[in-house]
């Protein structure tokens, strides 16, 4: 696959991209390296894996990371109940060694996403989502898979990949990842889209929405993201939800009133809603105050400024 072919596939999936993103995807594909994508929440990191699955015509296998995730949830687990039943049933069998061997065979193995992805007949896209939420031990455990495309199961031995998956790892940067993991990946950092790109995304995803409303909504979102008073910046998915809601309500022009009524689709906490209304109605003025309901004795609000994202 080359750059024009990949671009054609992304166009087919109605994914709005820039040239550097396509080049990075191609680098990861050509070198067979996992792709590590970092960026704030809601910039479209996970979407890339879905789009690549579509572009490469592969299945998507997803592993959602969380604190405490271990190999029994990510790689494999023995089916204990089935093993115990088997022992009970075959208790009087003549050859106990054969019984022990059979207990650790494929019949009793429950493959989890990582094992599924390397044992698949057809290559898949493996999405390891929010790797920064997992523990450092799990990160170290992934190294063997990412560099050698194999895993070790103590009772079975080394399981080599039948097909090589295209691996996408995403991280919200809540903690720095290890150097060892980074070194094994191609790297991509995604920022929030510019105004033009956001309008293009709305047009691609919601083709029935009128142009005027799309531009107005994108401008409003950009203002909200640019404000230090908003703690949780709106994501692209929230932009799309908001525009859909406006359209469903038959609103074709975004006024202060209509924005106020529907802002809950974009901002998800009462403090943010309050600050967001002030930002959109032009009353906040970043220099005058933050929009939060407390007194300001100085030029900036410690609470609000301290809680803004990078």
């Amino acid at each position, binding site marked *: 696959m080359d750059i024009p072919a990949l671009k054609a596939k992304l166009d087919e999936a109605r994914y709005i991209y820039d040239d*550097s993103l396509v*080049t990075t995807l*191609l680098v990861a594909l050509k070198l067979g390296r996992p792709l590590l994508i970092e960026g704030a929440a809601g910039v479209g990191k996970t979407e890339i894996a879905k789009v690549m699955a579509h572009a490469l015509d592969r299945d998507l296998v997803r592993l959602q990371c969380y604190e405490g995730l271990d190999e029994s949830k990510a790689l494999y687990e023995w089916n204990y109940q089935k093993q115990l039943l088997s022992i009970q049933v075959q208790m009087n069998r003549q050859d106990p060694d054969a019984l022990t061997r059979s207990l650790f065979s494929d019949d009793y193995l429950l493959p989890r996403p990582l094992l599924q992805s390397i044992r698949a007949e057809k290559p898949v896209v493996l999405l390891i989502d929010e790797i920064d939420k997992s523990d450092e031990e799990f990160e170290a455990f992934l190294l063997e898979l990412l560099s050698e495309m194999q895993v070790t199961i103590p009772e079975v031995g080394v399981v080599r990949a039948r097909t090589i998956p295209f691996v996408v790892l995403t991280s919200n940067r809540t903690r720095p990842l290890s150097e060892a993991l980074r070194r094994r990946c191609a790297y991509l950092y995604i920022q929030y889209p510019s105004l033009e790109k956001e309008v293009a995304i709305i047009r691609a995803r919601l083709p029935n929405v009128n142009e005027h409303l799309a531009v107005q909504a994108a401008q409003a979102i950009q203002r909200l993201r640019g404000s230090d008073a908003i703690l949780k910046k709106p994501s692209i998915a929230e932009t799309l939800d908001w525009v859909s809601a406006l359209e469903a309500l038959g609103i074709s022009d975004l006024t202060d009133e209509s924005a106020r009524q529907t802002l809950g689709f974009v901002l998800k906490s009462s403090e943010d809603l309050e600050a967001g209304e002030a930002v959109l109605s032009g009353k906040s003025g970043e220099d005058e105050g933050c929009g939060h309901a407390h007194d300001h004795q100085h030029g900036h609000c*410690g609470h609000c400024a301290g809680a*803004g994202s990078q």
Partner: protein
Amino acid sequence: MTVYLEKLAEFSALLRQEGLPVGLQETADACEILSCLDLGDRGTVRAALQAVYAKSREEQAAFQRAFDGFFVSAEKRDALRRRHAAEAEALARRRAEAEQELQVNGQPMDLREDLQEVYIRMGDRSREQLRQLLEKTKGNLERSPQLYSNFIRSVFMRFLLEQQMTMEDAASGCEESDPDLALLYRDISHFKDADIPRAAALIAAISRQLDAELSRQKQGAAHSGKLDFRRTIRKGLETGGSFYRLAYRRKRRRKRRLVLLCDVSGSMLQFSEFALRFIKSMSEVSESSQTYLFSEEIHAVDPFALQNMDAFRDYVRASGLYGRGTDLGTAMEKLCASRPAALGPSTTLLILSDTKTIDLPRAGRALLEARQRAGKVLWLNPIPERKWPYVRSIQTMQMLCQMLPCSTLDELARACRKMLK
């Protein structure tokens, strides 16, 4: 292909100098990917090499600088060539002029080569000032030639040092591409009012990262080796009563008590505010902490006053500590005398100060006493590390306790990491 490899190897070496951990694998990957791309498209080459070489947002900023310096566009290359030729010509002319100007009694002045270079590269105004100074002090030459020679050297050394400091304080170059990153590496004392909200947001983000890092480190700590019977039996129920997996008691970790001694004399207020933000925003820092503010006096701070940093400034101003000199010796003596229980073996004493105190020997003695009482003493110093050799008080205090440089937010974050390990 050989030419590619050689150039890429040079580029890899340059990236290593920039601090990127580039290995042979990255160079080989870069070579492989370039062989299947259109080399005429600079943007594509940049994006492809960036994906291979730069593995974090910070590394991307360093990569961009190195790429622009190494892979120069044709127009820029011509312009550079012309500029270098003009500079070389001007330099030769100035060298000849300097030889004429740096003479004493018709003889060339006895100056080291690097100091001569300083003179050559000086602006016209500085050169004129220096010539006037030399002219004014010429009378000393006959009285004491050795003293005069030392004086001349010291004048040149001062110019050299000033020039170096200007170079070191120059913006890191990534200001345009990423203002947040630039803020991370800028001297805290150079922050303007407009930078403060962004800096505060940056501190909050870094603190969250540190917090997450620490909580994970602690979760991953090894077990105590003692079996946890209750959890083992409960887990055994999942496998029909067989104890397939044993559960162990977790190691109990004792957090340290933290005593913060924070200098809020005039020049230190801004740094102290930032440092306190950092330390206070990390929930994992310590089991309990006590904060004392000092300049010539010492005050224990109500922890609620530190929750809101706007109120912190008001508190400092109202306390009468602001705008006065620094007397670390008195502050520590008072702390040890009035709160003898504050410092103990499980305490970490954290001093935030630039070491510029009155009565240095007394401060040294007080620090020694505090070191004997507290389990650990750490000093966070906002003066850039490169200037430490020139400050006597820093050298003295450095011998008495561990000192960490904290002139930038990045250094402050690193110090916090170190402090907690």
